[in-house]
């Protein structure tokens, strides 16, 4: 009973139920939604957001925010695309952009942790710089004509059901989830966001952890950029515009607190899957595509608000019961 209770109270569980709910409901309206093709498409499309949300989770846990990920995604995507187009080794190119993404993250982290600039301002600034750099780097032109070997893996399937990229994603996400929830160091991220001064007092290297969170966010944004280039096959100037909002929304959906201290990689990834599922479901429900953003936004608010309301209700109920117990227990003593 207790195990069941604790599972239900876990945000990851609520989110999973919600995801299953979407599948069932949309599946009733349009059974095509439940086919392997559709599910595979959703899983492919969500990879990008899973990576972004994963990186973002670390930053949010420390009580900060990173809105520059769209810029890092765009620039790193453009760089890896031009490199492989011009015949560079893809592995080498990937390592290079990952390094570059980490470097941008490092700059963000140094600005926030050392210079003390509020994270939203710092990353908004780097976002502007990165957006400008994309245009300068590409000369305003699309990067296309990528070689097939670079685009192919994104459609490669294992056992006819598991996309190669999805497998790689799982191989990255699962250890990270264990790291962040079970390991000693992983808990440092939420500790910094939970109680900064308290973290200082127990000897947690708060500045290093903050910087590391931004580095991870940059790294994952670069990885997402590479996935984007491989999956879509071209990069535009506007690639990644507004994507940071989807990443943040995925995290919030998955139970990562914007004020820091609560959340997990698994939750954020589930949130990313839901965001993609909603977009995809709208197609199957034959809703005009121009409504996509508005509906996603409304659903996001609905989910988060209802979650908050449920938690507030249970918390207040518990408080009332506790207070009432106070009165009664004491009476027995008299």
């Amino acid at each position, binding site marked *: 009973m207790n195990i069941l209770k604790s599972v239900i109270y876990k945000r990851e569980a609520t989110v999973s139920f919600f995801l299953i709910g979407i599948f069932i409901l949309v599946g009733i309206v349009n059974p095509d939604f439940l086919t392997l093709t559709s599910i595979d498409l959703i899983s492919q499309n969500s990879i990008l957001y899973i990576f972004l949300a994963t990186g973002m989770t670390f930053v949010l846990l420390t009580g900060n925010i990173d809105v520059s990920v769209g810029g890092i995604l765009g620039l790193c995507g453009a760089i890896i695309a031009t490199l492989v187009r011009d015949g560079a080794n893809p592995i080498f190119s990937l390592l290079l952009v990952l390094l570059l993404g980490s470097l941008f993250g490092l700059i963000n982290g140094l600005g926030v942790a050392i210079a003390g600039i509020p994270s939203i301002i710092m990353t908004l600034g780097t976002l502007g710089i990165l957006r400008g750099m994309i245009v300068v780097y590409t000369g305003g032109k699309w990067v296309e004509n990528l070689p097939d070997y670079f685009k192919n893996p994104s459609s490669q399937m294992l056992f006819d059901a598991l996309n190669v990229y999805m497998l790689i994603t799982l191989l990255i996400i699962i250890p990270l989830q264990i790291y962040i929830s079970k390991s000693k160091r992983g808990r440092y991220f939420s*500790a910094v966001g939970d*109680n900064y001064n308290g*973290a200082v007092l127990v*000897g*947690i290297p708060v500045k290093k952890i903050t910087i590391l969170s931004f580095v991870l966010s940059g790294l994952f944004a670069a990885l997402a950029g590479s996935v984007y280039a491989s999956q879509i096959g071209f990069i535009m100037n506007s690639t990644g515009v507004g994507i940071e909002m989807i990443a943040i929304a995925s995290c919030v959906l998955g139970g990562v607190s914007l004020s820091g*201290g*609560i959340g997990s990689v698994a939750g954020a990834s589930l949130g990313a899957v839901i965001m993609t599922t909603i977009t995809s479901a709208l197609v199957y429900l034959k809703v005009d595509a121009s409504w996509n953003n508005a509906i996603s936004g409304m659903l996001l608010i609905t989910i988060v608000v209802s979650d908050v309301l449920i938690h507030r209700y249970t918390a207040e109920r518990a408080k009332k019961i506790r207070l*009432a117990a*106070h009165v009664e227990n004491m*009476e027995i003593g008299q």
Partner: protein
Amino acid sequence: MKEIIPLLSIQNIYKSFASNPVLSGVNIRLNRGEVVAVIGGNGAGKSTLMKILMGIYKADSGTIFINGSEVSLMNPSHSLDLGIYLVPQEPMLFPNMTVEENIIIGMNQSKAELKRELKIIIKKMGWEVSLIRKADTLSIAEQQLVEILRGLLRKARILIFDEPTSALTFREVNLLFQIIEDLKHQGIGIFYITHRLKEVFEIATEVYVLKDGIITSSGKIDNFTEELLIKGLISDEDDKVSELSAEKGEHPVFVNDKEITEDVRIEKILEINRFTGYGFRDINLTVNTGQILGLAGVVGSGRTELAEAIFGLNRTISGEVLLYGEDITGLRTSEIIKRGINYLPEDRHLNGIFGESSVKINLNASTLFIDSKFIINGKKESEISSRYIQKFSIKVMDEDQKISSLSGGNQQKVVIGKVLSTSPQLIILDEPTRGIDAGARSDVYRIIEQLKNDGRAILLISSDFEEILILSDRIEVMHGGTNVRSFTREEISMDQLTEAAFGLVG
């Protein structure tokens, strides 16, 4: 040649902030199994000294020896490695983590090993601790216990307690003293920072009095009396305070009868009938103008819940609250303020101050919707703030200073000023002297007396029974959510009050 090497020796420490000297050559020694009390008023440099020990600040000059070898304390984790642990005044736990996670976080050994060691420590000390509870469900006393366990698991040889009892109830204080006694026998050296002189005599083995960055007197506790400590503590201009505190130690009731002026009419202002809500039930009481009604009781007896319900913050179940005979039960808080009640909340940091704002903005926060139409009346705001800064002698550089940069006592005076700025006829004061030093405490007492003499009605909530005894004209004792007994000033004694509050009424 058989001099014992002290556990910790601080020699000639100097520290100043922007040419403002805070510590001017401090020397302290701490031996194994000693409890060294460090007492001093606001701004005496106690916290700065302890922060230097924790590696949060760096001393300008001076040396620190641990077990006879010189160390330079660079950062908190370095101090922790050297076996120094600070139990802060307000526990610094991670609210979203379990007790166990809170204790072992930041340590390098393997988790399993730490868990085993932790269990051994808990067993050895004989404490009852649930390791799986989330930290935000713990009482402040329990949080402190977690902090102590953190220190012990880190093999701390030097524990620093910063005002540990300021948020504890009577029973919890006794428990803490027992724990400190246990720690003493384990050979741990303890710094005990406090402003409660009684505790110094109860728990300390040595005492250092710190004033304006200098140790004014120190030595074995047996060589001291309360008067001697106070002499070391209080500056000469503050003779009045010294009298007051000295008297307070001996005779709880220091208010002269002549202070109760005759021309203040005593009439009923607030009447509460069979008032029931979450955490309290069947409350009947009245508050009169020109009087202080003390509401005594231990933490958890429902006093704060009652106050919040009167003030319209919590929903109520049944019963009525009458102000001047008019029913105000369940009105909105803004309406209740307009009708002449204001409330000083228990938790200053959580509910009292706007930490990022200036003293002026804080002082005027309550009157915003009363005095200003659309544009804030800046001149009037300045008037109000300078009036309260003068009246309560709040120590600030100017009215635009950020409130969180003030000491606890001065912050509290600002909050009291804010509460008074709406000119309430009834003032509910919830733990008005929690976590502030002796000097500020007597200032607050004086303010409360003044309010009473002005003919205002005061509902004083406090866990400090001495405070209740000193100030109140009548006393209601709450226990288990209801007021179990009432006393007038003449018939009350400390024993009876304590008995009633702990539910031992006949």
